[in-house]
C-alpha cells in the first residue's frame, strides 16, 4: 500500500471512529478512586473489596435483605464452644481448574495470618485444620461471637496455584497474586494495570448460576477525575461512578438522567478528637465541640436529591440498625447553650486554643466539613487551622499520639457488617494508633463493653453490651458523630443492580452490592 493510500485509509478510519464503537459483549465500566489491591490477603478498602468479592468466594455470605449469614462455599456449619466446623461444597473448582479442598481454606487463613496485612487482624488467635477433604475446623483461642460474620473477609485462594508461583524470596507468591486471580469467583482477572484499570471476564465454570444478563466483561477503572467521570457517563462510556464524587456532581448526574444506587447500614462519618492532646484531653472541652457542631448543615451538605442523601442523621456512636444503636428519633442536633455550658467547665481558655482540623485530600467533601467546623467553633471563640493530608501521610501521622492532629475526619464502616469490626478498632485501648483510632481513647468502661460485645452468647447480651458502650461514648465525646453513612453511586440506565437498589436484595456489607454476577446489563 502506498503512503498516500495508507494516509487515506487512516483518515477514513478516523472519520468513522467518531461514532462510539459497538461492543460484541456486554461490558460494565465503573471506577474507584484508590487502586484496587488484587491480593485478597491485603484487601481492606472499598476497591479491594469489589475485586475480592468477585474474584474470590468465602465460606459464608451475608444474608440478602436481612441479618445473619448463609452458606456459600460451605453447605453447613456446627459450633461447639470455640470450635467451628464447616462442611464444604464438593462441586466447586477454582478458576485454574483445581478442585476446592479443605486444605485450601487452611492455607488461605495461614497465608493471611503470616502476611499480617489487610484485615488479617480479624483472624488473630484462630487456627484451622482440615478434618477431611471437604471439612474444615476453626478453633478460636478466645470466644468471639461474630466469628461467622468475620468469615466474609476470608477469601479462599487456590493453594496449588499459589504454591506453583511462590519463590524463596516470595513464599506467599505476593507478586503473582498482586497481578492475577487465584479464586473460585464469578469473575476472572484478565489484566490488571494499577495505573488505569483491572479488567475481569465472567467465569463460565462458576459453581452457581450466573444471570444471563450479567456483564461478560467488567472494567474497574482507577483514579478518574470527577469531570472525567461526568463526561464519560454523558457519552455513554461509563456505567457506575464511585461514591467519592462530590454531592453536586452526583446531583448534576442525576439531573442528567443518571439513576442513583445506594448502599448503607454499616458505617458512619466520624470527626475524631485526639483525647491525648490539650485542650481535647478534657472531656468538657470535647463536649463543647460536639454540641457546637452543626449536624443539620452537615446533612444539607450531603443531600443529593429530596429523597436521597449520602447519609442519615446520626443518633450516637453506633449507626442506626446495628446492635446498641439509638432509634432514629434520637438524632443529634446542634445545641449552642450546652456547648457554652461545656466551655464554662473546660479548663482551657478558648482564646488559647488553636485546633488543627485536618481533611483527607482524596475526599473533597471533608474540606467543607472542615470549614463548617471552623465556623462552628469560632462561635465559641475557638480559633483553628485547616490542613490537608493525603491518605498515606494521614495513616503515618496517626501512628503516634503526639503527631496525631487534634481533629481528623474519617468514614469508617464495619468490614464484616458486625459492630465489633466498626467499634473495637476505634475505641479499645489495646489497639495501637491507626487511621480508625486517632482518638487514642483509654477508658476501662469502654473496653469492658467492647469485650462483652465480643463474647455475648446471645443477641440480647450483645445488644445490651453495645447499648452501654454507646451511652458511655456519648458521655466521653471522643468523637463527633457526624452522620450515618449511605454510599450513593450515579449510574447509567444500561445497568441494573438489585443489591444496590432494592433493600430486600441488599447485603448489608460494604462492597458486596457490587457482586457483578447479580447485575444485569440492559442494551
Amino acid at each position: 500500500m502506498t503512503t498516500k493510500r495508507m494516509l487515506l485509509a487512516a483518515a477514513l478510519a478516523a472519520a468513522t471512529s467518531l461514532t462510539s464503537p459497538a461492543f460484541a459483549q456486554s461490558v460494565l465500566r465503573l471506577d474507584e478512586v484508590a487502586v484496587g489491591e488484587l491480593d485478597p490477603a491485603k484487601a481492606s478498602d472499598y476497591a479491594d473489596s469489589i475485586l475480592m468479592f468477585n474474584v474470590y468466594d468465602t465460606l459464608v455470605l451475608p444474608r440478602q435483605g436481612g441479618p445473619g449469614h448463609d452458606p456459600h462455599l460451605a453447605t453447613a456449619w456446627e459450633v461447639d464452644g470455640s470450635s467451628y466446623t464447616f462442611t464444604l461444597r464438593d462441586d466447586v473448582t477454582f478458576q485454574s481448574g483445581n478442585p476446592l479442598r479443605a486444605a485450601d481454606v487452611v492455607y488461605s487463613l495461614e497465608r493471611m495470618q503470616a502476611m499480617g496485612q489487610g484485615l488479617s487482624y480479624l483472624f488473630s488467635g484462630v487456627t484451622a485444620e482440615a478434618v477431611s477433604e471437604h471439612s474444615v475446623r476453626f478453633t478460636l483461642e478466645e470466644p468471639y461471637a461474630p466469628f461467622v460474620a468475620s468469615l466474609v473477609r476470608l477469601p479462599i485462594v487456590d493453594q496449588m496455584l499459589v504454591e506453583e508461583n511462590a519463590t524463596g524470596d516470595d513464599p506467599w507468591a505476593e507478586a503473582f497474586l498482586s497481578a492475577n486471580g487465584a479464586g473460585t469467583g464469578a469473575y476472572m482477572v484478565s489484566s490488571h494495570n494499577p495505573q488505569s484499570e483491572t479488567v475481569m471476564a465472567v467465569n463460565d465454570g462458576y459453581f452457581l448460576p450466573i444471570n444471563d444478563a450479567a456483564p461478560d466483561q467488567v472494567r474497574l477503572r482507577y483514579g478518574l477525575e470527577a469531570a472525567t467521570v461526568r463526561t464519560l457517563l454523558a457519552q455513554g462510556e461509563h456505567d457506575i461512578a464511585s461514591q467519592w464524587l462530590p454531592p453536586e456532581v452526583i446531583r448534576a448526574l442525576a439531573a442528567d438522567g443518571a439513576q442513583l444506587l445506594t448502599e448503607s447500614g454499616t458505617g458512619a462519618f466520624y470527626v475524631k478528637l485526639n483525647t491525648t492532646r490539650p485542650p481535647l484531653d478534657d472531656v468538657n472541652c470535647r463536649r463543647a465541640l460536639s454540641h457546637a457542631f452543626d449536624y443539620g448543615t452537615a446533612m444539607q451538605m450531603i443531600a443529593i436529591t429530596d429523597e436521597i442523601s449520602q447519609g442519615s442523621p446520626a443518633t450516637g456512636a453506633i449507626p442506626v440498625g446495628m446492635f446498641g444503636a439509638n432509634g432514629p428519633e434520637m438524632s443529634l442536633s446542634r445545641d449552642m447553650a450546652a456547648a457554652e455550658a461545656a466551655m464554662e467547665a473546660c479548663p482551657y481558655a478558648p482564646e488559647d486554643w488553636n485546633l488543627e482540623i485536618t481533611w483527607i485530600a482524596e475526599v473533597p467533601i471533608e474540606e467543607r466539613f472542615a470549614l463548617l467546623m471552623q465556623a462552628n467553633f469560632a462561635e465559641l471563640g475557638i480559633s483553628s487551622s485547616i490542613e490537608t493530608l493525603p491518605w498515606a501521610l494521614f495513616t503515618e501521622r496517626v501512628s503516634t499520639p503526639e503527631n496525631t492532629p487534634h481533629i481528623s475526619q474519617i468514614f469508617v464502616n464495619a468490614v464484616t457488617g458486625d459492630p465489633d469490626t466498626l467499634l473495637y478498632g476505634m475505641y479499645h485501648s489495646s489497639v495501637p494508633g491507626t487511621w480508625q483510632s486517632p482518638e487514642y481513647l483509654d477508658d476501662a468502661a469502654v473496653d469492658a463493653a467492647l469485650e462483652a460485645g465480643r463474647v455475648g452468647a446471645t443477641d440480647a447480651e450483645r445488644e445490651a453490651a453495645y447499648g452501654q458502650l454507646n451511652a458511655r461514648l456519648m458521655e466521653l465525646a471522643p468523637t463527633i458523630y457526624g452522620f450515618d453513612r449511605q454510599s450513593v453511586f450515579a449510574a447509567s440506565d444500561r445497568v441494573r443492580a438489585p443489591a444496590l437498589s432494592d433493600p430486600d436484595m441488599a447485603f448489608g456489607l460494604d462492597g458486596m452490592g457490587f457482586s457483578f454476577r447479580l447485575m444485569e446489563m440492559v442494551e
Partner: protein
Amino acid sequence: MLPVLRILLRRLGISAVVLVGVSMLIFAIARVIPGDPARIALGPSASAEQVTALRAEMHLDEPLVAQYGHFVSDVLRGDLGQSLYTNRPVTRDIAEFLPATLELVIFAGILMVALGLPLGILAARHRGRWPDHLIRVLTLLTVSAPSFVWAVILMLLFAFYLPLFPVAGRISDIYEIERITGFLTVDTLLAGNFAAFADALHHLVLPAVALALSGIGQAARLTRANMVETYQKPYIEMAQAYGFFPSRIARSYAFKPSLIPSLTIIGLDFAAMLGNAFLVEAVFAWPGLSRYGVNVILRKDLNAIMGTVLIIALTFLIVNIIVDLLIAFLNPRIRHSTRAAS
C-alpha cells in the same frame, strides 16, 4: 575533531554530572518527605515487627550514605528496585508508562512547532495589523491558563457538550493491540490496524492540545518578537531594497536567525511537559509516567520516585543536547566559537 562532535562530548560530560547531582538531591529530598514508606506500604494493620522488617529490607535503617551506595550499586546493575505502589519492578513500570507520556508529549511538541512557529511568523509579517492583534490576543490567552484548565475546558467543549472526542484512555476498549514499542500510534501501524491507529490518534487529540496550548502561545510570541527584531536589521532592509519577495525574505533571511531563541524555549517547554503532564494525564485518565510520578510521591514510594525522576531528568538532558546541537547547526558563530575555544 568536528565542532559538533566536540559540543556533543562536552554536553554529555556535563549531563552525566547533572544526572549524578539530581540523583543525590532527589535521594535526600525523598527521604525527608514526612511519612514512613514501610508503614505506608504495609498499611495501617501491619505490626511494628513487619514494618521494621520491611525497613531493613529497604535499607532504611542504615545511614543515608550507605543507602545511596546501595541505590547506585543497584542502578548500575539496571535494577531500580520494587515499587511499593504497584508491587512490580520500577523498571517494568517505567517501560510501561513512559511510552504513553512520551507519545503524548511528542504529539504536543509537534503541535507546538507546527502551530507556534507559523503563527509567530504570520504575526510578525503583519505587524500592527489585525492578524497580528488577533494572534497576540489568542496566544496571550493560551499562555495565561495552565494546561489542566485547558484540559477541563476542552473536555467540556469537545467531549461533553459536543461529543466529538473520547475523554479517557489511549484507545477504545474494542482494540487489543500487541505491545511492541508502547507507542500506540506506532504499534497500531505495525499491526496494520488502521482503524485502531485512527482511534489512538483520536484519543490523543484533546490531551495533546491541552498540553501544547501554552507552548504554542509561547513559541508564537517569541518567534514574533524575534522576527520583528530581525526585520529591523540592515541586511533585511537591503533585501527589501533589492526587491526580493516578502516570502523569500521571511523564509531565507529573517526566519533562521529568529528561530534560535524560539528553539531553545521549545526545547525547554518540551522537556518541561514531561513533568507537567500529570494533571492533563489525570483529567484524561492517561496512564503515563507523569501521573505515576505523582502517585508514587503521594505514597512515598522511594524506588519509584527515584526511577521516575531520573528518567525525566535524563529525557530533559537528552532534549537539551539535541537543542544545543540544532542551535550549533543553525548558528555558525557557536560552532566557530567552540573551535576557537578549543
